[in-house]
Each structure stands twice: as structure tokens, then as C-alpha cells.
């Protein structure tokens, strides 16, 4: 029997060193399939995904993305159509829900990747202007998050986590959880 969802969640790490081995287009498309099943505010599904697996284009993205580390063989840029979000869900949709929507899609990508033996890292440290120009985005589309995708070439340790007890209250703020 395979890992449970919780096992996969706990195993995922942000990887910053990758093998040179390429990820097949078929697998990358499976990750997008996982992404599009994320929930979204007002069911807007504001996302677009640009898979970058061409070495020359990755290099261009890499130069303007200081947070993109370890030379992954492929990256997925998650974008949101802010115009569509505004038309359906107003300023709340455009300014807040979009960010949540693409974040939930990103988590789906990273968890499926982990389950099938790939590694990822979400990256926000990139220059939106430069990346939008390099990847030819229309002006109503926001470049929101890059996810590096590849095969890990890094040993990781278990990061510290705040405990459930520390971060959980029942019914009212501050009511201690004595579970």
C-alpha cells in the first residue's frame, strides 16, 4: 500500500539541488491535471500554467529569478488571470482569492510530484516584469509563483515544525488544547 496523503505531505521538502535528468512532458502534464482540481474562489479557476522545459528558456528565467536555485530541468510558472477574477469576484477575487487559488493549485502540484518521486520548490523571488517579458505574458495576467520540478540531488533533514498544540485552539482564541 502506498503512502497516505499525510505521509506525502510530511515527506515533501523544498529542494534546491537537482539532477540533470529531464522530466517527461507527460509527467509535467499530470502535475497540471492535479493543479486544475484545486478549489478556487467563486470557482473562477483563474490559473494558467507555463511549463518551461526548454534549457535556453529556463536559463533566461533563472537569470531573473534569484530564488530559483539548483538548476532544475523544468519549472512551472503559475499565473493568474486577474481580469477574469475581478469580473467574477470583484476586488476580493482579484487581490486576495487569486493568491489563495494559485497557492492551493501549487500545493496539489507539489504533493503529486512528491508522490511520484519528483521534487519541487515554490519560488516567489523572481522579477515579475522580467519574467512576464521573457514568457510573453499579457498584461492582465500576473506571474505569481514558480515551482521548480526535477529529481532531487540533495539529502534533506526534517525541518522543525510548530506543534499542533502550539497552533490550535478550540472554539475561541487562546483556549488551550489539551489533547
Amino acid at each position, binding site marked *: 500500500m502506498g503512502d497516505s496523503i499525510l505521509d506525502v505531505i510530511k515527506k515533501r521538502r523544498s529542494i534546491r539541488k537537482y539532477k540533470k535528468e529531464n522530466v517527461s512532458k507527460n509527467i509535467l502534464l499530470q502535475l497540471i491535471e492535479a493543479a486544475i482540481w484545486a478549489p478556487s474562489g467563486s470557482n473562477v479557476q483563474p490559473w494558467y500554467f507555463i511549463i518551461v522545459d526548454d534549457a535556453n528558456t529556463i536559463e533566461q528565467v533563472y*537569470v531573473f529569478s534569484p530564488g530559483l536555485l539548483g538548476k532544475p530541468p523544468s519549472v512551472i510558472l503559475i499565473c493568474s488571470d486577474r481580469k477574469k477574477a475581478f469580473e467574477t469576484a470583484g476586488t476580493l477575487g482579484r487581490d486576495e482569492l487569486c493568491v489563495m487559488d494559485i497557492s492551493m493549485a501549487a500545493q496539489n502540484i507539489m504533493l503529486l510530484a512528491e508522490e511520484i518521486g519528483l521534487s519541487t520548490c515554490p519560488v516567489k523571488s523572481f522579477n515579475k516584469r522580467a519574467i512576464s517579458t521573457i514568457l510573453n505574458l499579457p498584461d492582465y495576467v500576473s506571474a505569481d509563483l514558480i515551482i521548480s520540478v526535477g529529481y532531487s540531488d540533495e539529502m534533506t533533514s526534517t525541518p522543525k515544525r510548530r506543534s499542533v498544540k502550539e497552533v490550535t485552539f478550540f472554539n475561541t482564541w487562546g483556549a488551550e488544547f489539551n489533547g
Partner: protein
Amino acid sequence: MDEKEIIKLFAYMITSARGCVDEPKIYGPFRLVDSISKLYGILEKNNLIGNEEVSKIIEKIEDKKYSCMTDEKEFVTMLDNVIDDFVALLNFNKK
């Protein structure tokens, strides 16, 4: 040497500078350190540096640079140690 490699490094550094305006404070030191790694990589690739001591220092940096995201104390200790190494390497140590 391919001039474009250096131009890419300049682009990376200026992008880092812009990012540091909005990003967490610790990212600034990391970007500087990462710039050293990238510059060293270019110099090494083009046989423009061959100092064994520098190579060891770069290894120390590579080994610990990502700790800035998980263990800031370890990262700062690495920086302090590497500064000591450079002082010694440059023979500026008067003790």
C-alpha cells in the same frame, strides 16, 4: 571568456537588489553569498582562478549557504568563519 556569462551575473545581481527591497532581510546576505558562488563558478570555468584556499572557502559557503532558510544562526556562523578564513588568506591577521 563568454562575456554573456558576466552580463547574466550582473542581471542576477540587479534582480537580487530589486528583490531585496521587499524580501525578508536574511535574503540580502544570502544573495550576496550566492553571487560569490556564481562569480566563482564563472572564474573557475574559465581557468581564471585556481587558488586552493579560495576553493576550500567556496566549499564552506556552498555547504552552508542554504541554512539561511532553516537555521539563521548556522548561516551567520558560516559567514563569521569564512571572514576569518579571508583574513588569514590575505595575511591580514596580526595576532
